[in-house]
C-alpha cells in the first residue's frame, strides 16, 4: 500500500530526508518516531504528494507520488501537525467543504461527516463554530476531515495530541477499526506508549535516516538484548544464600542482584525458567515471583536516538 525506495528530500543544501526505504502493507500501522526535526513531517508530506522528493521513489495506494500526485491525494487522508481549521466555519460546513473537494456527493458528505462526529463523541460540533471548540475537539475535527473520504492510506501526525484520555481512547479505537478495514496507516508521534499500543511496526528516524525498523518485540530484542527476568525470593539473598547465586550462575548469567531479588537475561525463558524454578525448589528456596522485567518502547527509543 505504501512503498518508499531511497526517498530523499533536500531543501537547498539541507537534507531533510535521506534515502528512506520502507513499506507499509494494507491493514498495518507503522509508527514513525524521531526527535523534532528528524524528517517525519517531511516524509509524511512527500507521501501525501504535497512535497516532491528530490530523489528516490514513493508509491502510495498504487500511485507514484511524483507522476500521479492527484490520484495519491484522493486516496490519502492527512492529519497535519496542527488542526488548521477555518475557525469562523461551523463543523458541518467545514466537513462539507472538504467532502466536496474530495469528490463526495451531498448524501455521502453529510452521512459520513455525522458518522465520524458521532464516533468521536461530538455530534454537537456540527452546528458550532470551530472557534468555540476545545483543543481536543479541534484535533478530532481535523481527524474527521482526514477520514472523511474513507481513504485507503492515512497519514496521522500526532493524532491524539491535546486530547483527554477518553477522547484519545475513542480516536485510538477508531484507528484500530481502520486497520481492520485494511487501511495502511502511518502515525507520527512522540507518545511512545500510544505507538507501542497501536503500531504493528516502528520506524525510528533521525537526521533524515531510518535508524531502526521492526516490530516492538524485534526492536526490544535487538536493541535491549534478550528478555530480562526478575526473580523475587521470600528471603534476602545474604551470605547464607550464596549457594543460591552459585546455583543459578550455572544456569543463567546474573545481570544484577539485591536484597531478595536477582535479574538475568535469557533468550529462551520458556526453557530456562522452569529449570531455574526446579533448581530453587530442589534447594528449598521459596520463590515469590519470576517475571519478565517490563521494557518499554521508550527504552528502545532512547537507546536508538542516544547512539
Amino acid at each position, binding site marked *: 500500500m505504501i512503498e518508499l525506495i531511497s526517498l530523499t528530500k533536500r*531543501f*537547498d*543544501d539541507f537534507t531533510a530526508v535521506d534515502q528512506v526505504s520502507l513499506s507499509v502493507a494494507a491493514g498495518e500501522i507503522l509508527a514513525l518516531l524521531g526527535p523534532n526535526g528528524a524528517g517525519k513531517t517531511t516524509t509524511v*508530506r512527500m507521501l*501525501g504528494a*504535497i*512535497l*516532491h522528493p528530490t530523489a528516490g521513489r514513493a508509491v502510495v495506494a498504487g500511485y507514484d507520488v511524483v507522476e500521479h500526485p*492527484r490520484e495519491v*491525494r*484522493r*486516496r*490519502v487522508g*492527512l492529519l*497535519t*501537525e*496542527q*488542526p*488548521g*481549521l*477555518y475557525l*469562523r*466555519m461551523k463543523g458541518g460546513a467545514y466537513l462539507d*467543504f*472538504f467532502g*466536496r*473537494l*474530495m*469528490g*463526495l*456527493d451531498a448524501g*455521502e458528505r453529510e452521512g459520513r461527516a455525522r458518522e465520524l462526529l458521532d464516533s468521536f463523541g461530538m455530534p454537537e460540533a456540527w452546528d458550532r463554530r470551530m472557534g468555540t471548540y476545545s483543543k481536543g475537539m479541534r484535533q478530532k475535527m*481535523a481527524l474527521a*476531515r482526514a477520514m472523511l*473520504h*474513507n481513504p*485507503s492510506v492515512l497519514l496521522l501526525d500526532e493524532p491524539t495530541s491535546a486530547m483527554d484520555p477518553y477522547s484519545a481512547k475513542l480516536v485510538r479505537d477508531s484507528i484500530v477499526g481502520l486497520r481492520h478495514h485494511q487501511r495502511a496507516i502511518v502515525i507520527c508521534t512522540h507518545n511512545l506508549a500510544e505507538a507501542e499500543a497501536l503500531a504493528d511496526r516502528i520506524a525510528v528516524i533521525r537526521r533524515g535516516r531510518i535508524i531502526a525498523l521492526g516490530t516492538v518485540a524485534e526492536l526490544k530484542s535487538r536493541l535491549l538484548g534478550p528478555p530480562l527476568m526478575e526473580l523475587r525470593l521470600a528471603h534476602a539473598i545474604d551470605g547464607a544464600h550464596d549457594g543460591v547465586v552459585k546455583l543459578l550462575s550455572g544456569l543463567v548469567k546474573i545481570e544484577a542482584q539485591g536484597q531478595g531479588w536477582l535479574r538475568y537475561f535469557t533468550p529462551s525463558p520458556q526453557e530456562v525458567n522452569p529449570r531455574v524454578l526446579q533448581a530453587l525448589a530442589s534447594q528449598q528456596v521459596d520463590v515469590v515471583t519470576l517475571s519478565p522485567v517490563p521494557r518499554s518502547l521508550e527504552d528502545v527509543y532512547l537507546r536508538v536516538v542516544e547512539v
Partner: protein
Amino acid sequence: MAAVTERFQARPGEPLRLVFTLVRREIWDTLRDWRIVVPIVILTVFFPILMSFVADLALTWVAKYGDPIIGERLIPFLLMVVGFFPISFSLVIALETFVGEKERSSLEPLLATPLTDAQLYMGKTLAAVIPPLLAAYLGITVYLTGLFFFEGWTASPALLALVITLTTAEAVVMVSGAVVLSSQTTSVRAANLLASFIIIPMALLVQGEALIMFYANYSVLWWVALFLIVVDVVLVRMGIHIFSREELLGREIDELNLAFLWRVFVGYLRWDRWFFGVSKQRTADGQKPPLLLRWLGTLCGLYCRDIPAILRRSWMAHAVVIVGLLGSLYIGYAFAARYQLPPDTLQLDQVSVETFAELPAVDWLPTFTAWGVFSNNLRALLLATLLAVFSFGTLAVGLLMAPMAIVFFFVAQVAHLGYSPLLFFATFVLPHGLLEMPAATMATALAVRLGATFISPPRGMTVGEGWLWALADFIKVFFALVLPLLAFAAAIEVHVTPLVVVWAFGG
C-alpha cells in the same frame, strides 16, 4: 468507497467545480470578516453618494464662474475614483490569501486535497478579486444613480465601458501580483512590505489616469487599459507557473542563502573541457594533458559545446527577438511612408569621410571612435538587460527595435529619394552590422530569457534556479561572443564602413 474516486474523475466540469467550491468558501470567509466588510460597505454605498453630492456642488460652483468644463471633467474622474477605492481592498485580501492561511496552519489540509496547483491559484485569485470588484461595480452604480437624480447626468456607454474595463484590469493586476507575493513569502508582514512593489506603480498609474481623464483623452486611456490587460495576462501566467505546493510549504523562513545561491550559480557557469575527443581532466594513462591542450580544451569546450548548447536552449527567446526585428522593419517602413524627408535632406553623393568625422557634433550620437561606438553599444545592451529583468524581457526587445526601426526608416527614405535601398543598407549598415546585429540579437535574446524566467521558469527548476541559469548563460555568451563581436564591429564601423560608403556613393 473506491467508487467515489472513479465518479470524481468522471464528472464533466470537475476542475471548474473544484475552483468554485474554493471560491465560494473563500468569499464566505471574507464576508464574515467585519474588518473587510465594513470599509467595503462604506466605500460602496456611503462614499459614492458623497461623491455624487460633491460632483453636484462642484458643477454648481464652477457654473457660477462660467467655467463648466471643470465640473464636466470632474464627473468622469470621480467615477474612476469611486470604482478604484473598493478594489484597493482586493490587495489586502490577496496578500493574505496564501501566507495568511500558512500562518494559521490551515493551508496544509487544503494542499492535501486533489486540487491542482492551478486550481488553487485560480480559486484564491478569483476569491480575492470578486468581492471588491462587485463592490466597485455597485459603487459606480450608486454614484451614477446619485448623479442622475442630482444633475440628470448619465454616462455615455463608451465612458462606462472604459471605467469598468480600467477598474477590472487594475483589480486583476493588483490581485494577481499580490497572490504571487503571498505565495512566495513566509509571513503576512513580509508580504505587506513587498506590496510596495504593487502599491507604488498602481498609485502612479492612477494619478496618470486621473490626469488623462481630466484632459478627456479617452483613447489614451483605452491604450492604458490594453496595457493593463497584457500585464494581467503576464501576471496570471506567472502566478500559475511559479505557484507550487513545494514553494508554499518547503520554506519556513525567508532566508537568503547566499552561499547556496553562489554554489548553484558557479555550477551553472562551469563548462566541461573538450578538445575533439579529449574531454577528461586526465588522459588514459592518468597524466594531466599538457597545458596547451588544457587551454585549448577550455576554449573549445566553451565555443564548440557550451555556447551552441546555450543558443539552442534559447531558441524561443531568439525567435521573440527576430519577430521584434521584423516588427521594427515594418515600423521603419511605415513611418518612412508617413513622414517623408524633403528631397535635399539626404545627399548621399556628397558623403565623404569628413561627414563621418563631423558626426559627434550631433549630441545624441557617441564619439565616432571605435571606443565611443563600442562603449555606446555596450551601454545600450546592458541597459536593455537591466530593463529586461524588470519587464519580463519586453523592454529589451523594445530597446533593440528602436534603433533598427530608425535604420529601416532611413533605408525606406533613401528609396523615396531615388537611391538604391539595398546599396544603402549594404554599405552603411552591413559592413559592421554583420557582426553587430548578431551580437545585439544574441545579447537581447539572453536578456529576454533573464526576464521571462520570472513568468516561465524552466521545468523542474525554481524561479531562483532558473534565473541563475539564465544569468550564467547570459554572462558566458556576453563575454565569449557579444563583447568580441561588438569590439570588431565598432572598429569596422569607424575604420571600414566610411570607406565603403564613400567608395559606393562617391563624394
